[in-house]
């Protein structure tokens, strides 16, 4: 290396072809294609006669209500991703399993209460206990996860915690499979929650109304907590700069544990609501809602509470309304089975076009 000759520097010459902004061009083409497909699909669906598989106004209304209720659940899970990301800058891939753990654990209580008649005799108290159990299990799982798997990797290269999280997710799923078996269990639903109720002239399933109300309460409380309490302030401080926050006398480890715990609380509540809606629990139930919730968090702008809530509702609506609206027009059979693929497609498109999210700062786009 220590030669006497000066190193020759050759200028890197790019050909005209290579100088073209390829990425920009591909993105524009992709964007035009997406918009075109959406426009054509929607027009064709909306002009479709009912006999040919078109939908009535009532059907669309139901899709919207259903989507909003789903979205509320996604939003609650998304907050867990978003809070943790805000503080540790890591994607807690196992958060879907935190959600599953609470839902699955609470099943055994719900089942016992149903068999003893307690669930229908005193549904409010019974559901409160069931929710408390779910929250307890979810919080426990989240905190253990942080303590055993993530804390040792706090200063590791960025991808290491993500890979660990994937491993932890697989481990948790299969732990529940080992404990309780691979089969799905039917989740009981109290009689009070069955049937419809009319709100402002719109027929809504009772359970959907419950989901929406609980979600709105939870998010309001969380917003209040983070913006006004001392703990909330320290959370925001740690999110901005961990080192400076610790110099200011904030116990960073404690704040991180609290963040995971809050995510666990919301995931536990969401788990009960989800199980009451779909009346089934299984060890794999965390994966797809987890991905949908993560998509919501990114769509809204990861790290922001309002963003996660907004993203959740948008994704919920998109996955309920999108497939019938866009895909039916192209004559694709059984559009509802493509719901999950639709969510993934939205995830890919969001990350490609707007990785900073709707309310985000664009910080996520490095380079």
């Amino acid at each position: 290396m220590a030669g006497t000759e000066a190193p020759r520097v050759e200028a890197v010459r790019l050909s005209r072809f290579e100088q073209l902004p390829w990425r920009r061009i591909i993105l524009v083409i992709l964007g035009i294609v997406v918009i075109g497909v959406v426009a054509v699909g929607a027009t064709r669906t909306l002009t479709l006669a009912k006999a040919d598989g078109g939908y009535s106004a009532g059907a669309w209304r139901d899709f919207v209500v259903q989507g909003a209720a789903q979205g509320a659940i996604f939003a609650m899970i998304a907050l867990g991703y978003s809070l943790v990301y805000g503080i540790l800058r890591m994607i807690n891939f196992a958060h879907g399993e935190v959600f599953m753990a609470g839902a699955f654990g609470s099943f055994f209580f719900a089942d016992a209460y149903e068999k003893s008649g307690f669930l229908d005799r005193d549904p409010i108290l019974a559901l409160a206990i069931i929710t408390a159990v779910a929250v307890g299990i979810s919080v426990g799982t989240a905190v253990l996860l942080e303590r055993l798997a993530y804390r040792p990797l706090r200063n590791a290269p960025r991808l290491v915690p993500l890979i660990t999280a994937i491993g932890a997710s697989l481990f948790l799923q299969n732990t529940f499979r080992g404990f309780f078996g691979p089969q799905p269990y039917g989740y009981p639903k109290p009689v009070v929650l069955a049937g419809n109720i009319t709100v402002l002239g719109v027929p809504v399933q009772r359970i959907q109304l419950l989901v929406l109300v609980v979600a709105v309460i939870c998010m309001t409380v969380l917003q209040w907590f983070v913006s006004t309490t001392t703990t909330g302030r320290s959370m925001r401080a740690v999110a901005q700069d961990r080192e400076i926050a610790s110099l200011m006398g904030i116990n960073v480890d404690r704040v991180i544990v609290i963040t995971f715990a809050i995510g666990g609380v919301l995931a536990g509540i969401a788990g009960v609501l989800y199980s009451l809606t779909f009346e089934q629990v299984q060890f794999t139930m965390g994966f797809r809602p987890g991905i949908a919730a993560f998509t919501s968090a990114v769509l809204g702008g990861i790290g922001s509470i309002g963003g996660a809530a907004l993203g959740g509702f948008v994704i919920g609506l998109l996955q309920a309304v999108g497939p019938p609206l866009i895909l039916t027009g192209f004559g694709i059979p059984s559009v509802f089975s493509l719901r999950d693929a639709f969510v993934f497609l939205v995830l890919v498109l969001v990350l490609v076009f707007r990785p900073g999210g709707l309310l985000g700062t664009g910080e996520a786009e490095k380079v």
Partner: protein
Amino acid sequence: MARTRWIRMGAAAGVVMVFLALVGLIGGFTDVNLIGDQITFAGLMLVLPAFAAGLVAAAPRVEGGERYEMRLSEAMIAAAVAGAAAGVTFALAVVLADWIGAERIRTVFLNVTPQLMEFVNFGQATAPGALLIVAISTLAGVIGGTLRAAPPPVRRPVTSAVIVTLMFGFLQRVIPIALDQLKLERDWLYSSQFDGLTWIGAVVVGVVTAGISGLNARFGERLRGGLAQAGGRSGPTFSPVRLATGAIALGLLLVAPLLLGSVISEVLGTVMVFALLGVGLNIVVGYAGLLDLGYVFFFALGAYSLALLTGATLNAYGIPPEPAISGHLNFYVAIPIVMVIAAAAGVLVGAPVLRLRGDYLALVTLGLGEMVTVLVGSPWFVPLVGGPSGMRGITDAAIGGLAFRDPQRFYYLALAFVGLAAFISWRLATSRIGRAWTAMREDEQTADAMGISTTRFKLLAFAIGGSIGSLGGALFAVKIGSLTPASFQVLVSIQVLGLVILGGMGSIPGVIVGALVLVGLPGLLREFEEYRFLAYGAAVVAVMVLRPQGLVPNVRRSRELQDEERAQDEWAKAVEEGETPPEIATTGAAT
């Protein structure tokens, strides 16, 4: 102060024991004999946590920057305390379970069977059973602690002897077959009555291993030194010892199916398909540092495009069996086409997403992989790929009259492809492209500033990794002969990622070892199948926390990363000073 630490460690081990019992790793394995009919897999699981607690309690500690080694007596006390704490924790759980009644617990925790209770009570009533648990755990702890505190000339041979003997016990379905094929006497080694090793066999295996290990400690260094001098070039990539190890490993891989018969060759064929996928993913993740969680995309692409190109038929009812697009090419003509398609797909998929930061890229690829899974199984694509019922009648890759569907022959076909892919990937890694990937992986912005076109090299990694992955898919299709969407779950991506990580990112021998351990071992012990993914998850977490460079680290990479290693050692030390994650560590060790 130290005493509370020992107790805490022991209690954690006790919790691990409860976990193992609940998850079914004890109750389901009381009949799997490893040595005689006394040492069963279940028994091993039962004492291993206490043993590990003793081992860790007696390990040297770093306090105030000074290394503190315990004297033997001290270590034994520490280990006894830890072992006893583990035993007490577990015994309390067992007493509680006895009090509630196994039948009642079983309505929730499926694995708490009366058989399990009988096993953990050693067939005794509650009180004497609990005492026995505490006594045995304490003993296991003391053995672990003594072993840890023993001087290295004693510790190393004993450790290797125990591990190798247990491995022989695990491989009870493999080694006897090989002995039969070689026309060697097997009854002294493996009991025909209990399946596991006989006691005589166990002692012989143990003593031989200990002897080899002792000789290695005594003369190995000198021998290696001599060999290195004789070899002349002493670079670590070409050291004679490594070459010799490689040659032996290659020889074993070549004769394995002949020795092991068709049942095990079937498993080994799957191992090779996964090894091929691993070599491909290793280029993307290990060399270029792009975390791809949607690798199943290329796997499915390879399998289905091969099926379409070689004239497979649809399985679905009520529609013509000919797919919408169909060719009738020979396997060896179709393969290059499949690979080109996959490379093109890699570029197309990669182009819009490559500017994303690492973790976002991971999730986009996960999304793409999942989308493929859903789409392949959806009614929408029935005329093309058969939807949920899939396709059948896939070519058997015959050359002349020689077909490769037979497990033993398939293994060689797959091995040949793995060898080819490994060679290409090795040459790439040491080329200019490989160095560009390394630079990019370590610091993308700096690499960019040095004039490396990161976009181009990322796309190249995706294209090459993708085409090797599609090769894996094509071979899988040949192996199975039919395709259903169930084979193309997101779990495939995670499995491949797991084996790359376990073996060591960027290391080709690591990929093979990873595939053998993660795909091969669970396939050999049929009872273990259900716990495969539990072990995967535990292994990935354990490797990331305890040994991020993997089992067989990439030499060049570890040299390059020495500074980073030091930083990693620091966080490893932080783990040591806090609590080691015991649950994960022991289950990982058990796989």
